[in-house]
């Protein structure tokens, strides 16, 4: 898995004012025969929000999107847009548009006709269609390809046409089903930035489905992490990274050290480590990010920090940083992120702030 920069680079500005709810998904469940794909999903999407549904393949993320679009019906639960119940309506009556994974451009129509399709079936006057199509193509910089057939343009260009075709209808909500997965890495990063700025420009709520956590972090206002058809956590990228709710979330988003600990009398014990914490007695699980651990200098340790000495096992170069694995007493192996080029001795002192060890719930084992 690609590394997540320590800063968890995000293009988003934190949503300032609470926005009104646009779409609400209420207790939606779906099963195909015996195979349960979604279990009681509830979530709300605000006007103008960029929400990413993140999950591995088979997590049910695409099914959830297809239920909102209307290509799939929920086994139970409801989908509401404002005071209008969406899940009872056929897809062609919903004010929702989709950008499909493989774009699904009509091969027999030109770029221009593809973009104008929605307006044409809605019976808009030709003059209006022409001007809105021209405007939409302008926005995605595809004007010079207006008369081309989809097979004659590149994947990135098809992507833009698919976007224009959806946005020209001025939907209240745009669904995007892994729209960047077919593009190569460079183009993909470029499209992430373009897509995000386009979203801010048009102000339409986006629901973006992806399996790529880095993509989710870069683009989203909020991330909903799905696992085996269940919602693990829904939060802003920063929050989901710094305050993961479960062990699964902590591991899925970036690297982490999962510490199996025991709480006794206000103290957390983990192998040779211990630090004070106000937690109920018993076993507990902590997530400690590699960048939260420092290689301690010879100077006196920060008083409240947890300090441990270990033996260097492995060093992996990641550009600006390196990930080192350190064998600590009690069988504990910690992964630590250090600046590149810092000379690491074989015997190394590590320290971290107790506050950076985040208690997480154990995710129930499921398949």
């Amino acid at each position: 898995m690609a590394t997540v920069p320590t800063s968890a680079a995000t293009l988003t500005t934190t949503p300032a004012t609470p926005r009104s709810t646009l779409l609400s998904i209420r207790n939606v469940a779906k099963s195909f025969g015996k195979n349960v794909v979604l279990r009681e999903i509830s979530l709300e999407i605000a006007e103008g929000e960029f929400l990413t549904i993140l999950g591995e393949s088979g997590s049910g993320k695409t099914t959830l999107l297809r239920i909102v679009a209307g290509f799939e019906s929920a086994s139970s639960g409801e989908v509401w847009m404002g005071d209008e119940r969406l899940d009872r309506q056929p897809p062609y009556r919903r004010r929702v548009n989709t950008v499909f994974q493989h774009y699904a451009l009509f091969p027999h129509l030109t770029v221009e006709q593809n973009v104008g399709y929605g307006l044409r079936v809605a019976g808009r006057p030709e003059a209006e269609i022409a001007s809105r199509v021209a405007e939409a193509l302008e926005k995605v910089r595809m004007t010079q390809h207006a008369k081309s057939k989809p097979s004659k343009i590149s994947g990135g260009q098809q992507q833009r046409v698919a976007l224009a075709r959806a946005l020209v209808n001025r939907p209240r909500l745009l669904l995007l089903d892994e729209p960047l997965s077919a593009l190569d890495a460079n183009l993909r990063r470029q499209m992430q930035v373009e897509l995000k700025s386009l979203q801010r420009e048009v102000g339409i709520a986006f629901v973006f489905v992806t399996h790529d956590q880095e993509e989710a972090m870069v683009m989203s206002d909020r991330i909903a992490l799905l696992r085996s058809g269940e919602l693990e956590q829904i939060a802003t990228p920063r929050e989901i990274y710094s305050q993961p709710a479960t062990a699964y979330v902590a591991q899925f988003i970036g690297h982490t050290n999962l510490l199996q600990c025991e709480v006794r009398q206000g103290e957390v014990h983990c192998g040779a480590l211990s630090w004070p914490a106000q937690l109920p007695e018993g076993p507990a699980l902590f997530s400690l990010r590699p960048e939260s651990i420092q290689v301690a200098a010879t100077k006196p340790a920060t008083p409240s920090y947890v300090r441990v000495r270990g033996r260097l096992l492995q060093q992996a170069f990641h550009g600006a940083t390196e990930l080192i694995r350190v064998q600590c007493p009690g069988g504990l192996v910690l992964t630590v992120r250090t600046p590149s080029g810092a000379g690491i001795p074989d015997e190394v002192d590590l320290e971290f702030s107790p506050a950076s060890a985040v208690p997480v719930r154990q995710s129930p084992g499921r398949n």
Partner: protein
Amino acid sequence: MFSRAYKTIVTVPPLLWVTVFLLIPYLLMFCYSFWSVSPAQTIVRSWDLANYQTLFRVNVYWQTLLRSMWIAARVTIFSLLLGYPLAYFLSFYAGKRKDLLYQLVIIPLWVSYLVRAYAWKTILGSDGVLNTLLQYLHLARHPLEFLLYSPFAVVLTLTHIYTPFAFLPIYAALEHIPRNLVEASHDLGATPAQTFWKVIFPLSIPGVVAGATFAFVLSLGDFLAPLLLGGPSGIMISNIVVSLFGAAYNWPLGAAISLCMLALVVSLLFLSERLEKKWSFS
């Protein structure tokens, strides 16, 4: 790469086959079409266009050719009208029963042509199933004579026989339409009817052209159905060719008519290929 000897061994037999069984017979036919028959019933190798002139001057020949085309055109239209909805239903709505229904469409192709033609004879005859039923229900006082030994019987039988040939390419074309295009169309606000006419039908045109070509070409050259069920008013051009090569013993004229039909069919195939290319996008 393959050796020269290997290439020769592989290419020679099919070439030989095509030469002996296609090219030479066609060449012979071509020659025959310029020759003539003497009053003493011998072939005279005189080179002229008399046979082609006969074909266009003698009413019975060109009229029968036109009638054959008209019958083939009707068969084509009815085959498409039956085959398209069937293919559409199977491809889009049959769900789990798709494979079974597909087999049911294909199985009749394994039944002998003669059996199917005779079946219609027993159904349409004056004391056949249909007439007996109509009289029993007092819907007809006398057996309906036009049912059998008429162009109607020929069109009906040929439609029955060639509908699967129209169905197959249409079904293949419909199966090739990515389903996300249909979803995209609905997503953009198109009703199912709009989606059909703006997306599904245009993308199935290559299949329709191929199916129409099959139905037309096959029924144009048919001679068994008109022989068994056509009667005097339902004979087709192939029946004339058969009799010219047989009882009438006029091979030169038969060859000339055959070559005209061949030219017609080849130009149709050429046209249909152009059309299919124009409407395929991949």
